[in-house]
């Protein structure tokens, strides 16, 4: 192979308290995709932010095509052909597709923006992805999937010779995923160097030629994909064997019915959804993005209006009651998809975060005042139970690692002793270690007799946990599978129908 197109040599970065990068060297070759694998906090993003000009390194240097390069701003980086597809979309909702794609690279004539030329560029870029949006549509009116396409198309503008994909598939439907892989192949054939960051290992095997594995800010392994097994990768990522257990599934015997949902309907989101939940089971709610999984959870929690249908709770004494939105919180807990925006009170302490849903039970003799002592003891109890690594229960959650943050949210709900637990992408963006811990917790809840519903775009994860599957398509539950369902069945049911449906939408 020719000499590397990109060389990042001896790159070092120190954040207060942490060595984010300890002398990392990374090489990328034109026309190949290198997978950058590592647990959260391993330093992948830091490294890429250095390359993308988002942060400046403390030491080391970057060579592109043999020439030294130092980027002070993302703009500079993109000028030198480094493009970044961010995990959480970097789009401006109130602006139209055109502006979003061109924002830093408007073609100009006499100081004014030349929109005619601009449209040309954008249309071509989108064509390469097989899309043709009306370019004046505001991005906020696009579906998340389409928004990601716009984000990717942006990198195809101009002459980006290195494209960084950071968890690009996290919000894509399987069709879009396939298309993305196709695009990446095209890019490679054009001699673009791809750096592909992901947690989903099978993607690594489909897309990449080489893998660079990082741990605690250092490169721990580098090799051709062909010479690697999934087990080896996981092992190198976490430097231990234990978390591989994450793939084993263990039998569970569900108890009596806890909840029945009858003909639940919310205009435009949920369409005649009916199902039952039994205590002590884990139900995998499988479906493509936008199929209404999150909406279903929100409806159950009483966060969104319900236009028709009823939710009935089965009390132990076999008596059945309608579950009012107000009461929903007393029997249900919900882990939101995005813990930073929907879950945590970032600047606040672990204590305040964990007690917030349970305050009503922490009052002093029924007075509307919080009984501080009890609050603290309860918090400590759960911090221990969940093994949340922190300096004290007064530590601000913003300073916790992703895994521990997620555990704080879990702890918040465990305090309320919920009968039903709704988990929306509970391990998104967590490292393998943290994933394993959360899976243990999930299993634990079910064994303790709670009914757990889990949504995840990681099929392996769902399959490793669920005793039963509900498959959702466009707001309906279209099929139910037993634990014995195969990957193929699930994928087919979820996307097969959506294939014709998407034409409509």
């Amino acid at each position: 192979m020719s000499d590397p197109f990109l060389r990042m040599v001896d790159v070092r970065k120190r954040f207060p308290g942490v060595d984010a990068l300890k002398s990392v060297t990374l090489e990328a070759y034109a026309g190949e995709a290198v997978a950058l694998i590592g647990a959260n906090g391993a330093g992948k993003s830091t490294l890429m932010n250095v390359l993308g000009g988002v942060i400046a390194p403390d030491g080391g240097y970057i060579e592109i095509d043999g020439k030294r390069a130092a980027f002070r701003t993302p703009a500079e980086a993109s000028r030198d052909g480094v493009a970044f597809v961010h995990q959480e979309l970097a789009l401006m909702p109130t602006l139209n597709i055109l502006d979003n794609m061109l924002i830093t690279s408007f073609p100009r004539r006499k100081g004014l923006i030349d929109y005619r030329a601009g449209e040309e560029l954008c249309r071509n870029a989108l064509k390469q992805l097989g899309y043709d949006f009306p370019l004046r549509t505001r991005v906020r009116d696009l579906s998340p999937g389409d928004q990601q396409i716009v984000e990717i198309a942006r990198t195809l503008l101009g002459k980006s010779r290195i494209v960084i994909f950071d968890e690009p598939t996290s919000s894509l439907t399987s069709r879009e995923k396939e298309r993305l892989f196709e695009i990446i192949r095209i890019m490679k054939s054009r001699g673009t160097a791809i750096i592909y960051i992901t947690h989903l290992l099978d993607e690594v095997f489909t897309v990449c030629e080489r893998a660079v594995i990082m741990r605690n800010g250092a490169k721990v392994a580098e090799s051709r994909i062909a010479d690697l097994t999934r087990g080896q990768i996981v092992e190198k990522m976490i430097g231990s064997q234990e978390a591989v257990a994450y793939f084993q599934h263990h039998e569970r015997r569900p108890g009596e019915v806890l909840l029945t949902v009858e003909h639940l309907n919310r205009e435009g989101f949920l369409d005649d959804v009916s199902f039952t939940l039994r205590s002590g089971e884990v139900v995998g709610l499988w479906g493509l993005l936008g199929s209404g999984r999150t909406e279903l959870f929100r409806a159950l929690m009483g966060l969104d209006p319900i236009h028709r249908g009823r939710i009935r709770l089965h009390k132990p004494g076999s008596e059945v009651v309608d579950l009012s939105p107000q009461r929903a919180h007393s029997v249900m807990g919900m882990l939101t998809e995005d813990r930073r925006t929907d879950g945590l009170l970032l600047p606040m302490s672990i204590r305040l975060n964990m007690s917030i849903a349970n305050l009503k039970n922490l009052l002093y003799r029924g007075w509307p005042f919080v009984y501080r002592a009890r609050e603290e003891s309860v918090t400590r109890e759960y911090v221990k139970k969940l093994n949340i690594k922190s300096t004290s229960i007064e530590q601000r959650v913003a300073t916790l690692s992703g895994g521990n943050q997620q555990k704080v949210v879990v702890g918040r709900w465990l305090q309320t002793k919920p009968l039903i637990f709704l988990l929306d992408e509970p391990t998104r963006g967590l490292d393998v270690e943290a994933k394993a811990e959360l899976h243990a917790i999930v299993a634990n809840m079910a064994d303790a007799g709670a009914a757990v519903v889990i949504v995840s775009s990681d099929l392996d994860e769902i399959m490793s946990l669920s005793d039963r599957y509900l498959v959702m398509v466009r707001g309906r539950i279209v099929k139910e599978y037993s634990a014995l369902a195969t990957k193929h069945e699930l994928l087919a049911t979820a996307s097969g129908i959506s294939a014709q449906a998407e034409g409509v939408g």
Partner: protein
Amino acid sequence: MAAKERFTLGRFLLSYGFVLTLIAIVVLCSIASPAFFTFKNALFILHASAPTMILATGVAFVLMTGKMDISIGSTAYLSAGVGIMLMVHAHMSPLPACLIIFAIGALLGAVNGFIVVVLRVNPLITTLGTFFTFRGLALQITNSLTISIPSDLGEFGSIRVGPFFLDTLIAGVVLAAYHLVHTRTVFGRYVMAVGNGVDVAQKVGVPVDRTTFLTFVLAGLMASVGGVLTMAQVGSISPSLGQGYEFTAIALLVIGGVSLFGGEGTILPGIVLGALTLTIIQSGLNFVGASPFVYPLVRGGIIFVAMYADSLKNAVARKVRLIPE
């Protein structure tokens, strides 16, 4: 999606609703007083609203970046105050004096920009502080006297080009220029990008700080221009110059469809319509000889309605995005 369909009609009404209100007001006033609906009066209304239009235009970009500037009134007074002192005491001729005024306006804007961008102080607080400070300095300088402006500048206030007052045309030019900058230049797009959230803009490589700083400078500049025009109209400068401009300007912008969320709004026709609405109400009430004391109430009412419409618009947007709350 069903969600979207349901709102398109509402959306239409929301975006054109206040135009209808405007027409309604005009009709009512015309019925009440024949002298109201005349070309002459129309010209005057344009004339009277010119300064406010310019002031508001200045603030527009600040609001579009999702920031806030309530110091423009004081900025206008301070810059104009310095200018008048130069003209009256240093006997400087109006033109250079005006240039200095504009320079000062821009400078004061830069002060705001500096505090916001470099010292990272919340814009509302920043401009609240400079609101006090600038006014204090201005009163010090003019010793808070009401000062007649040199007659030649006074003349300027009532020069007509064809049927139009000169300041109407100036306002027209400024607005046109702003519209062009907003829609057809990179800076204009940057403003909107920043309005969509600083972190995202930063990530895609928009020079957020520079853009923000510049918007404040422009706001200051336009404030001083507006100040000069007001001065020229009234024929004198008094400490009441610029009082309440900050709130009027913001109200006007929101009526004109600029959202305080940032990233939303247009220069044309938005600001023009906004400005006209307010001025027409004022003069309309003048004409129909309504009790003088009903002004503030009516103005308040209209503003409330307009702002309510604005927030509905955003509610719609949020619904379409399927984002709760």
